[in-house]
């Protein structure tokens, strides 16, 4: 099948260990072709397979009466009453944003919005949780300016308000910034679209932008630790095209209003590979693709490149055969590519053809089921002695300390950031950034959603269990403080190298703390993302499990905001 002999070096370059490669040989019963190896490497990367985190993520509670879809789809879905559903998820774009802040952050926002509208929801709010190095570091300024401009550049153009977020600074992020983006969408509860393929013989359709040689191996890059020369060996970074994505959004929602789609998934990191494999695996089917039919933007692209490309603004769908022409007309109206590139089969195999040659023929289910799962060794973070407040010296000049606190990088106003985001488009932002949680009104109703994101990494570092629980509880408090009822969360687990037991200990501790808080509050996790290997030269970031919370309020007119309303009103302090 392939002229290239697979050497141990090639295997290593694909981020597979020799044991993992042995498993590949076992599954294939022969040496894989380069394309097949590339597909294994993507599917089994940390990013796609969650191989280090899967055993731990299972501990999170994911169920409640109002959960329509928990983790495992493009985004989670909850019932918010009146036949409506909120669809949301958070995702990281940490490594790309460090390499190219504007485009890295922009494409992160684009990716998470696709995850949400693939489910049939119109995005109605964006959130961004950012972590940068020390403000004194010359690089920090450049990174924050680029990241904020990129998030705004994409979200503003899409016409989705960016209403909440957070920004922290700490030396541990000097070489590994965190850019976590969350999107909340609104859908009819009975019109959610899923990714499981069905119907042997149904056409497989590619829509959106053309495929180029973007970010080939991005998914494996996102799972590999940085070294100092990463900046030199820079891989191609994807350039986002929010205009095309806006068209894709409108075209998809228009098509979803008809009865045409059997299954749909966006091509995120790992592009055509993960979308085709996951869709057919979930449906228990095979899939055959003719790669000559894939719209490409460059000449001479190989099967390997087409399958591993991370070009943005693309989607894969399975259509009802009779709906082809309706669908084509909609995508043509929006001037987007629409190509029938394959068909569902009953073979259980992924078969790829190019120039009449079979470039890959591999069983689908082992790519998912047999993906390695590691119970990485871990050590619990040692308990730190509690510091009694009474043991600390009382500062002589309290007002001066207060000023210093207010002026510190972590507490100062974030207006500089959110003013670069269109937080008002759609006209329904009732509580703007700057409060506890943002409130977005739903169209034509007094009802609204409360949205927030939180994490205090230094708490997680001092005591992962408490820190994890605290992050969940803080989103809960932020939402309740506006008068809304918290319903569910998404999370973004940002950690260092999981092959170090201390890091796995932080991960384990945070998960346990989050799980405890979620259970106590009946506040399930419905989606999430894991970003590991946030390390440079063996120095990891502070453990940063970012929590995105969503709640509902029956009447946004009754929501409560932060500002004191009048002089001489009573101020109360409640809680312990």
């Amino acid at each position: 099948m392939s002229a290239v002999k697979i050497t141990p070096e090639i295997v290593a370059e694909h981020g597979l260990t020799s044991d993992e490669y042995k498993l590949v040989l076992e599954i294939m019963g022969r040496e894989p072709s380069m394309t097949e190896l590339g597909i294994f490497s993507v599917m089994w990367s940390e990013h796609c397979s969650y191989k280090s985190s899967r055993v731990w993520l299972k501990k999170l509670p994911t169920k409640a009466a109002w959960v329509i879809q928990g983790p495992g789809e493009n985004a989670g879905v909850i019932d918010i009453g009146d036949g409506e559903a909120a669809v949301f998820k958070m995702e990281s774009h940490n490594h790309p944003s460090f390499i190219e802040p504007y485009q890295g952050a922009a494409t992160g926002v684009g990716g998470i919005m696709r995850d949400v509208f693939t489910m049939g929801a119109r995005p109605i709010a964006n959130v961004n949780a950012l972590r940068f190095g020390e403000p004194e570091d010359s690089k920090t300024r450049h990174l924050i300016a680029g990241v904020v401009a990129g998030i705004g550049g994409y979200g503003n153009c899409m016409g989705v308000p960016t209403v909440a977020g957070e920004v922290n600074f700490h030396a541990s992020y000097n070489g590994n910034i965190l850019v976590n983006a969350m999107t909340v969408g609104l859908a009819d509860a009975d019109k959610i679209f899923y990714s499981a393929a069905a119907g042997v013989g149904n056409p497989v359709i590619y829509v959106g932008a053309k495929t180029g040689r973007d970010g080939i191996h991005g998914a494996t890059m996102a799972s590999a630790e940085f070294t100092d020369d990463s900046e030199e060996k820079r891989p191609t970074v994807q350039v986002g095209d929010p205009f095309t994505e806006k068209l894709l959004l409108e075209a998809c929602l228009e098509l979803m209003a008809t009865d045409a789609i059997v299954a749909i998934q966006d091509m995120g990191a790992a592009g055509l590979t993960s979308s085709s494999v996951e869709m057919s695996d979930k449906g228990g089917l095979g899939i055959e693709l003719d790669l000559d039919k894939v719209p490409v933007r460059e000449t001479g692209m190989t099967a390997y490149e087409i399958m591993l490309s991370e070009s943005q603004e693309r989607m894969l769908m399975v259509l009802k055969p009779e709906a082809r022409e309706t669908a084509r007309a909609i995508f043509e109206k929006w001037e987007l590519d629409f190509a029938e590139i394959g068909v569902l089969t009953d073979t259980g195999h992924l078969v790829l053809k190019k120039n009449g040659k079979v470039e890959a023929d591999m069983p689908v289910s082992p790519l998912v089921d047999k993906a390695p799962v590691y119970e990485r060794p871990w050590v619990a973070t040692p308990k730190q002695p509690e510091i009694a407040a009474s043991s600390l010296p009382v500062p002589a000049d309290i007002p001066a300390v207060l000023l210093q606190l207010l002026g510190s990088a972590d507490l100062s106003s974030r207006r500089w950031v959110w003013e670069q985001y269109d937080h008002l488009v759609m006209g329904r932002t009732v509580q703007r950034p700057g409060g506890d949680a943002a409130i977005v009104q739903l169209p034509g109703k007094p009802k609204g959603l409360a949205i927030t994101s939180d994490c205090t990494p230094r708490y997680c570092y001092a005591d992962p269990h408490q820190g994890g629980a605290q992050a969940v509880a803080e989103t809960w408090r932020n939402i309740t403080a506006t008068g809304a009822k918290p319903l569910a969360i998404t999370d973004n687990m940002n950690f260092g190298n999981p092959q170090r037991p201390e890091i796995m200990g932080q991960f384990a501790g945070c998960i346990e703390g989050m799980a405890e808080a979620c259970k106590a509050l009946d506040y399930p996790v419905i989606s999430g993302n894991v970003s590991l290997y946030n390390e440079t030269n063996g120095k990891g970031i502070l453990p940063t499990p970012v929590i995105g919370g969503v709640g509902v309020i029956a009447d946004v007119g009754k929501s409560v905001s932060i500002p004191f309303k009048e002089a001489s009103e009573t101020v109360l302090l409640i809680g312990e």
Partner: protein
Amino acid sequence: MKAAIVVFPGSNREQDAKAALSKALGTEPVMVWHRDSELPKVDLVLVPGGFSYGDYLRTGAIAAHSPILREVKERAEKGVAVIGICNGFQIITEAGMLPGVLLRNSHLKFVCRNVHLKVATTQTLFTSRYEKDQVLSVPVAHHDGNYFVDDKTLGEMEANDQIAFRYCAPDGNVAVEHNPNGSLRNIAGVFNRTKNVLGMMPHPENAIDPLQGSTDGFALFQGMVEALS
């Protein structure tokens, strides 16, 4: 009175504009897709905000050269009222329906926040519901709102009362520190010579409901409906 909203690929405040116009009109405006060759017979055309064609090349440039805009321009020349908001302002200015040009904000950043506007003239079909020098609170959200025009034209515009709004302080003081984008003489909106075309950067359509924090934008829509009915 009948109104139409022209929708381009990349428009994103057309629904906001529709909500505002519907509220003032009592009926819904017609949404016209850019590829429709016919613009229906209407009394008012609204070109909404957004990023038409991604705002690639220059903001508004590609939309300004679309066939539908040629039609809008012809109607305006016949006296039909046209309002361009934000990207709509950029588009109709690029199309030559208004003097000047909208450059990148002087600080180069996108800016979204509430601003105060001083009403410069009330003798128009758009602003008749306001008082002269009234101060409005309305949001802006743009990257290219830095209005620029040559001195000679500016002189003519001022003499002819073609400035619609200026950025100002809450007390009405027009000073550079209240200008969100560096525009010439704090200009936020301008009319054409015959005052049937208005272009403005701020978003009156996002200030029509107390829940949005201000209702100051609504009188603009009410005024247009009143004048054109």
